[in-house]
């Protein structure tokens, strides 16, 4: 019995880290735009969203540290793990590119994130349900924001339309990874705790399709969805993100304010 409980704990820990990693890496990517946004208001909006996501990552990492015990803190996970330990989906680690790419990545993530949190408010794990009830309020604003921009740019000038279509064509193959369950998401011990991501796919895709249609964007067919992030197999971009994120910790281990 004891072994079953600890197995469940290990799975829950991995699952919580997967959720946290998505939020943190996208938050980190968006933070790169701090002071570099296309106009002041959008610079502020993007960094606000970044802050929300880093906040979400923090409460998840805090929970992970509690599950693991043994003196771990929320900082151990972002600062002391190497590439293969991270379980975020590939979409969130892709570079910002031009504003069309940033918005398209955000919109895809928001479509997933919003419906994922909505389902997670019913999680059998009380803490996860509370975290979802809290963060869905923020994710709702994110989805509204990115939807509006996809429409404004997609249905804007010829140039803005072409750039959005370019971003959609390049990024669409990264959308479905969110809905393909990892080993951990399929783990029987997390039944009723982990969100069944195959079940939110239809709602997320419906929202995605509706907004793309309003924006006059054509959704290309995807023959080979890109995946691997959930199992720690990342794109070539990921090491560079960690190099920046973990720089201080690597140069001055365990330094403190």
């Amino acid at each position: 019995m004891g072994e079953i409980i600890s197995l469940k704990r290990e799975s829950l820990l991995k699952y919580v880290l997967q959720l946290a990693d998505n939020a943190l890496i996208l938050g980190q990517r968006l933070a790169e735009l701090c002071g570099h946004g296309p106009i002041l208001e959008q610079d502020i909006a993007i960094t606000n969203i970044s802050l929300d996501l880093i906040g979400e990552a923090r409460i998840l990492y805090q929970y992970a540290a509690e599950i693991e015990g043994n003196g771990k803190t929320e900082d151990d996970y972002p600062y002391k793990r190497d590439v293969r330990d991270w379980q975020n989906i590939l979409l969130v680690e892709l570079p910002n590119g031009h504003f069309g790419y940033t918005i398209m990545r955000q919109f895809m993530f928001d479509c997933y994130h919003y419906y994922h949190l909505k389902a997670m408010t019913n999680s059998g794990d009380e803490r996860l349900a509370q975290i979802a009830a809290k963060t869905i309020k923020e994710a709702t604003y994110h989805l509204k924001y990115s939807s509006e921009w996809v429409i404004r740019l997609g249905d804007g000038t010829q140039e803005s339309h072409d750039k959005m279509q370019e971003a959609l064509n390049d990024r669409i193959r990264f959308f479905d990874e969110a809905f393909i369950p990892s080993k951990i998401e399929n783990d029987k011990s997390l039944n009723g705790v982990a969100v069944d991501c195959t079940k939110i796919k239809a709602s997320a895709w419906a929202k995605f399709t509706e907004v793309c249609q309003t924006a006059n964007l054509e959704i290309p067919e995807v023959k080979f969805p890109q995946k691997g992030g959930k199992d720690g197999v990342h794109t070539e971009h990921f090491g560079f993100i960690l190099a920046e994120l973990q720089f201080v910790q690597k140069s001055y281990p365990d330094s403190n304010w």
Partner: protein
Amino acid sequence: MVVDKLHIENVLKSVTDPEIPVLTIQDLGIYQGFETEGEKITVLITPTYTGCPAMDMISVNVKSAMEEAGYNDVEVKLILSPVWTTDMISEDGHRKLKEYGIAPPVEKTSDKSYLSGEEKIVPCPQCESKNTQLVSQFGSTACKALYKCIDCLEPFDYFKCY
């Protein structure tokens, strides 16, 4: 030091928000009471936005206010339930926000129209004009949106529904 519940309550209620110093943590609705165990006091706070950097500052301010009042064994605990919503801002809080130049939330969160894209009229806190326009859903802090008044031309912050 003897634990005097009424005294503690009054000290805690007077702690202000670092971003919006006219509001106390009670006006804001984030103060959720305290628990005592012997001389140890645990103050319960439900955070506004998850990433709000003011939360750490509030914890520090709560501790120092308590220390000044003579209580040294104080812990601030962030709780996620009840989930904070803008509905928890007191009536007094609404008035103070407006006087400070920030438009208070115009609707209850049970009114879901703020999600569907339907724009509500947010009166200008300076001139009361209803002829105002949303500039950006994201403003100077996580909890605010940016508006401008078409009549008096002043930009202003709006404490958005959450």
